[in-house]
């Protein structure tokens, strides 16, 4: 009898235990025992020759040492479940699931975990509610962006990456409704079967085709509520699209040329005529010089935004004052010439309730046709950068995070938002770069990212920024080259 051992590493014992219980629908469960009185060990009888033993480890930080592959992966965020083969020292798949639908600012919260796995070509599934209750009590439907990201990363990395939904309109946030849970474990059981040598990638093809169908259908039904257009949107209704992507990730088929511009938001000259004509600035809540320049580019139709609905969540005045003081203290150590700390509480407009708006642009990002325009805007907003010479060419993705609280930009939900948008808007489905990636943090100081001598600090957010951004602009117009660490 051959016994294969896997380890399920999870955020909590419950998640690993639940995964094993669900797998018992596909593999015959022999027994459950508990090592050291509490560590679950599931023994499955796969066939007459093979047994599968799965040991569950809850809460990553409890254990020492963490397997190297897992320690490396979770630097990009901790998936809820990682299946690990200790003999091969290899991760078989990763999975994320959430009990609530991430809405509003949180919608892209876990996308860095998806990207972290996919960049290592680790198959990844994300299970979340399609319908959920927002903090305002209303029912919201999931954002399209995690699903768009999953489709794009599937193509780029030729690795399965799926977003599955549970719940329905009448039963928001309820795992027992919708097809998501069943479909998820059908895929994971098949993937384990492939790892054990009892299934083939061919067995995964129909499951993935169905999952990609679901994802594409979801985007097709939801995108008009989120964006003004989807590049190559006809692929959303083409019955061959899902099978094509499933074939790409399971059978190493070549990428169909028709997919090339799928989800590739190009320059203004490539936009549908009606979309081009409707380009207009989205507006500003808290005045900001760089944002005004960017709005100017959009008003000249040399760049565009996809939606202007970034909500403002005004902050308590005392918190704003405290955060400004903290930022100022960190800025004071910078030693940079020609710049000064520019944040002042009077710059933040009052809301009706007497709180303070921190939101600048009503858009989370701008898609600008040329680096030259972007660079001109940056220099106009921050004259101290007038001598900047970058030699860059090409269109630009410019992401804005208005967060003021120190350190927030390195954590949830901003790392997920950046992971999603930077991958979606700066790469095509072949993984080729299509835009220069710039982030603007008007209320954060650069010393949180990098030391004066160009040494990057270490945390999940910095790891993601260095991987996905070319430049970041901070308070006072301090520009950091994310590839070299050079501060201008």
């Amino acid at each position, binding site marked *: 009898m051959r016994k294969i051992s896997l380890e399920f590493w999870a*955020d*909590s*014992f*419950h*998640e690993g235990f*639940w995964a094993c219980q669900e797998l018992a629908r596909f593999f015959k469960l022999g027994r459950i025992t*508990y*090592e*050291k*009185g*509490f*560590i*679950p060990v599931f023994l499955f009888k796969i066939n007459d020759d093979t047994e599968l033993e799965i*040991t569950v*480890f*809850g*809460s990553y*930080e*409890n*254990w*020492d*040492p*963490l397997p190297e592959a897992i320690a490396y992966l979770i630097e990009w965020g901790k998936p*809820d479940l990682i299946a690990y083969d*200790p003999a091969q020292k290899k991760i078989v798949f990763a999975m994320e*699931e*959430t*009990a*609530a639908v991430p809405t509003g600012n949180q919608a892209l919260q876990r996308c860095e975990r998806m990207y972290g796995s996919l960049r290592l070509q680790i198959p990844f599934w994300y299970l979340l509610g399609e319908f959920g209750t927002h*903090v305002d009590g209303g029912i919201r439907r999931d954002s399209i962006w995690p699903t768009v990201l999953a489709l794009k990363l599937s193509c780029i990395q030729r690795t399965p990456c799926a977003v599955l939904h549970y719940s329905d309109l009448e039963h928001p946030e309820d*795992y027992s409704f919708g097809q998501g849970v069943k479909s998820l474990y059908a895929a994971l059981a098949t993937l384990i079967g492939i790892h054990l040598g009892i299934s083939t990638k061919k067995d995964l093809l129909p499951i993935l085709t169905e999952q990609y169908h679901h994802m594409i259908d979801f985007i097709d039904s939801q995108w008009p509520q989120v964006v003004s257009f989807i590049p190559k949107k006809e692929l959303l209704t083409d019955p061959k699209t899902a099978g094509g992507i499933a074939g790409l990730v399971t059978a190493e088929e070549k990428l169909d040329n028709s997919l090339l511009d799928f989800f590739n938001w190009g320059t203004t000259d490539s936009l549908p005529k009606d979309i081009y004509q409707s380009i207009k600035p989205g507006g500003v809540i808290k005045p900001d010089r760089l944002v005004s320049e960017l709005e100017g580019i959009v008003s000249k139709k040399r760049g565009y935004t996809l939606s202007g609905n970034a909500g403002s969540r005004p902050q308590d005045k005392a918190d704003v004052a405290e955060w400004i003081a903290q930022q100022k203290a960190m800025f004071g150590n910078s030693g940079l010439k020609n710049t000064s700390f520019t944040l002042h509480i009077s710059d933040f407009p009052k809301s009706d309730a007497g709180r303070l708006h921190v939101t600048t642009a009503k858009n989370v990002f701008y898609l600008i046709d040329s680096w030259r325009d972007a660079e001109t805007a940056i220099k106009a907003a921050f004259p101290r950068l007038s001598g900047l010479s970058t030699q860059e060419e090409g269109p630009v993705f410019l992401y804005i995070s208005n967060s003021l609280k120190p350190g927030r930009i390195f954590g949830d939900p901003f790392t997920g938002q950046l992971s999603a948008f930077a991958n979606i808007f700066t790469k095509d489905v072949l993984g080729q770069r299509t835009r220069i990636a710039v982030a603007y943090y008007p209320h954060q100081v650069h010393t949180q990212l990098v030391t004066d001598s160009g040494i990057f600090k270490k945390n999940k957010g910095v790891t993601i920024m260095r991987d996905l951004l070319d430049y970041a602009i901070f308070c006072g117009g301090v520009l950091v080259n994310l590839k070299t660490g050079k501060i201008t």
Partner: protein
Amino acid sequence: MISYTYSPSEEIARWATEVYIKKNPKLGWWVAFTNPTAGPWKKVVAPGEGGTSVEIYRFIREEERPDLILVNDDFKVILIVEAKDCVGKLIASDQMTKSIRVIREMAEILSQSRNPHWQTRKNYKVLPSFLWMCGNGNDIQKECSLVRKEFLARWDGPKRDVVNIVVSKDKSENLINTFVYKGGVFQNLDFQLS
């Protein structure tokens, strides 16, 4: 053979207790709520027909919640459990105040439930309970006294005693639960909770 070592944590304390409940079904205890760091377990449930679970109460996003709720229909008792990795965190004054508030509010929610699957349990005795890990089995009673003292100093409701659940290692390094109630020390949760 497990090749990793673990450090004490609230997650392990709570899970070890749930494993104890799973391994001892004859005692009649079941888990109505558990609060792991993530996952779909954010609601209070009760057994429904045909082995299903029925939702009794769902916490809203930022609502305070206990770490574990254990129910025994034979004893007609509900334990509302607050957990930490060590006793020091449980007896910190802010924490004990918060724990008592959480236990009170949860008891109130359960006593006012209109769910038909909970009606028979509305009049069960509700006991505050504390759960932690203890590195030295010889210290269990001493630590329990600290928790009880801190609880009684801050509890201003009808007279209640606490059920302490302490997780420690036995000689084989296996985690075991010890239950302490009204000065009595028990290896099983099968004693009279009057």
